[in-house]
């Protein structure tokens, strides 16, 4: 009896020790997940969750995806849900626009967003505007996804950033994620959203691993569209960016921290709707703003952020003009040395921060 009580007590002790261990352990179940796999998981989970969801695009099925993002999905879900199309971007769109009205929820993959220009009429005129034009009769729950922006050595026709192009259009939601967590949570939200969503990935990020918390790995993990994230708090200057350049900003911030400059780095996550409150709040704290993007300067994401800051309450808190760090205003050249100098480098961000802070 005493032995039993003893055993039970030690058992309880053991259990509580275990519990304590679990509570103290910071990330026993977190894992290193590549962006590509996070996207794959998101699509897999949503395909499983909702019969109406299907994926359509060039080489998405049997080839496992041009960039292997849809790897394994065709084997799992078959021809009906993962569809290889001929090289006809327009049809990808126009075939997909009515199905939402017929109750389906398509995901349309563009091999790169450069090819979406072949079909951009359908994205804007058939997807984005239809709910408005029909005064609420015809919603279009569709996701357009694919890699956007510059890659490595793919030259002018394959390196353009479309964040500003799509961000310009009312009726669309435009997402530009950075980390694996962003990609998974936002893609799931995009698929569940009842509106047309343009999901701008980045080819150079596909193979980059990020730590994903256990929560982020769960099947119901979503990130709300339209909310930015402060990746690194700071007090001297606000750096706002999206997609791959968030990483560049964090690297620049690490270098600047050694010189005593603390940058607050904001990951926009969504281009449209823009989370202006987050940026304003940060600027009101730091009094300085630098935006960083890969796209061209004219009429770009940075230009919009600066305009909004000027029009809002945060303007009075600026101690220096807001500054944009952008791609060079030229078509993308091929030669490595020219290409490297056509997009923002970490040194450009550091330089702009110091000029803005006048140090």
């Amino acid at each position, binding site marked *: 009896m005493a032995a039993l009580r003893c055993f039970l007590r030690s058992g309880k002790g053991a259990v509580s020790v275990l519990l304590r261990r679990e509570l103290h352990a910071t990330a026993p179940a977190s894992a290193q997940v590549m962006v590509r796999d996070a996207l794959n998981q998101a699509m897999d989970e949503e395909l499983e969750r909702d019969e109406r969801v299907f994926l359509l695009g*060039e*080489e998405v099925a*049997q*080839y496992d995806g*041009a960039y292997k993002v849809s790897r394994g999905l065709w084997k799992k879900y078959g021809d009906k849900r993962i569809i*290889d199309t*001929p*090289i*006809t971007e*327009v*049809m990808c769109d126009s075939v997909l626009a009515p199905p939402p009205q017929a109750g389906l929820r398509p995901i349309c993959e563009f091999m790169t967003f*450069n*090819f979406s*220009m*072949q079909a951009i009429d359908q994205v804007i005129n058939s997807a984005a505007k239809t709910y408005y034009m029909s005064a609420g009769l015809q919603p279009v729950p569709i996701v357009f996804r694919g890699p956007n922006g510059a*890659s*490595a*050595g*793919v*030259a*002018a*026709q*394959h390196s353009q950033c479309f964040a500003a192009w799509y961000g310009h259009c009312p009726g669309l939601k435009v997402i530009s994620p950075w980390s694996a967590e962003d990609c998974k949570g936002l893609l799931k939200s995009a698929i569940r959203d009842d509106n047309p969503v343009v999901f701008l990935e980045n080819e150079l990020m596909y193979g980059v691993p990020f730590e994903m918390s256990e929560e982020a790995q769960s099947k119901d993990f979503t990130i709300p569209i339209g909310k930015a994230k402060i990746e690194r708090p700071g007090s001297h200057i606000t750096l706002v960016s999206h997609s791959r350049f968030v990483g560049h900003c964090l690297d620049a911030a690490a270098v600047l921290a050694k010189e005593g400059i603390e940058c607050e780095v904001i990951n926009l996550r969504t281009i449209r709707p823009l989370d202006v409150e987050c940026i304003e709040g940060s600027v009101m704290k730091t009094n300085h703003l630098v935006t960083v993007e890969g796209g061209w*300067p004219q009429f770009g994401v940075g230009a919009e952020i600066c305009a909004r800051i000027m029009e809002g309450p945060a303007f009075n808190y600026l101690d220096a003009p807001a*500054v*944009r*760090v*952008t*791609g*060079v*205003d*030229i*078509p993308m*050249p*091929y*030669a*490595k*040395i*020219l290409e490297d*100098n*056509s*997009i*923002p*480098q970490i040194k*450009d961000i550091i*330089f*702009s921060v110091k*000029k803005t802070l006048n140090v």
Partner: protein
Amino acid sequence: MKNMLTIISNALCRITGKNVLLIDLSEYVSLTSPAAPALAKTQRQPPKPPPGARVVVSRSYADFTPQATFDIKKCEVHRLEEGPAGKAELTREQGLQYYRTMQTIRRMELRADQLYKQKIIRGFCHLYDGQEACAVGIESAINPSDHLITAYRSHGYTYTRGVSVKEILAELTGRKGGVAKGKGGSMHMYAPHFYGGNGIVGAQIPLGAGIALACQYQGNNQVCVTLYGDGAANQGQLFESFNMAALWKLPCIFICENNRYGMGTSVERASASTDYYMRGDFIPGIRVDGMDVLCVREATKFAADHCRAGKGPIVMELQTYRYHGHSMSDPGVSYRTREEIQEVRSKSDPISLLKERMLSSNMASAEEFKVIDVEIRKEVEEAAQFATSDPEPPLEELCNHIFYNEAPIEVRGTNPWSKLKSVS
């Protein structure tokens, strides 16, 4: 005395088959070759060395058949009374030249493959090996003043349209000696009357129709060869171009290089109709054996004559094959078998086909081909050396060539303090 020596020497040559001739006797002796097969008809031709080639083997041209006629595969036709003839004439010098050009393209592409694997070439690289007969056959049937536009598998055409191997490889490696000064890369190489090199699938087709419109507008009797692949054959812009070209009778030769796979998708999985030569509907079409340079040449001549006669556009489908995958990042074996690739290589290789024809009709010797091969290897190796050692373009070039014929403008760099200069 000289005559005596000549006669003796010739006799010795004929007996032994060895070549130490004092005088070239082809003018004086009748041209019959003991080895000529029944198919070939021989004809007197004044001998000329092939352009640009040194005659290293000092064998009498009398020993070679200077011209022969070959049977070529009859082309299937669409909306035509008759297609190109089923026979093609080939002179020795033409044959050697086609061989030389195809082999140069082949070696250049294989060298590019190596450079890519060494990471000296980066980005996209879509290789043309296997399809050489298309580029060479087409070029041999049109004039340099005619126009040509193609998609991204363009290195072969860049060469046939007059750009040197050196400039092509240097463009692939992104150096200032490249044909586009390193700014274009693999898919964006240009030359007079050659409009690239286009990255977006199908986008070059309306451009080609536009060039044909310009030819018509200027009344210069030129044609535009507009190339596209089996993948692009399903693009809407192709059919828009067909309509306009037919309506306005534009001198446009639409050529579909059907290599059976659009990236990883076979033609059966992509096209409701794989009769690409018929897809022009109201436009006449010819289906051509794209592995036979003579077949391609005859069909292109036929097509060019059709256009120049004011009959409007015409469609050609070249049935061909690529040995490499879609690009260097595609191994090319996940959607087709190695056996299939091997079979095409062994039975239908365009270069082997031509070589065997010439050898079996005694139009050239195996040694001659070997010599040409050695010369080409040397040329390609020198080009690769140049492409690896030439410096990258200078940063001052970064912003140039945005506009044509303009005063210099200021271009914004990555930040507001970076003001760069652009000249036309």
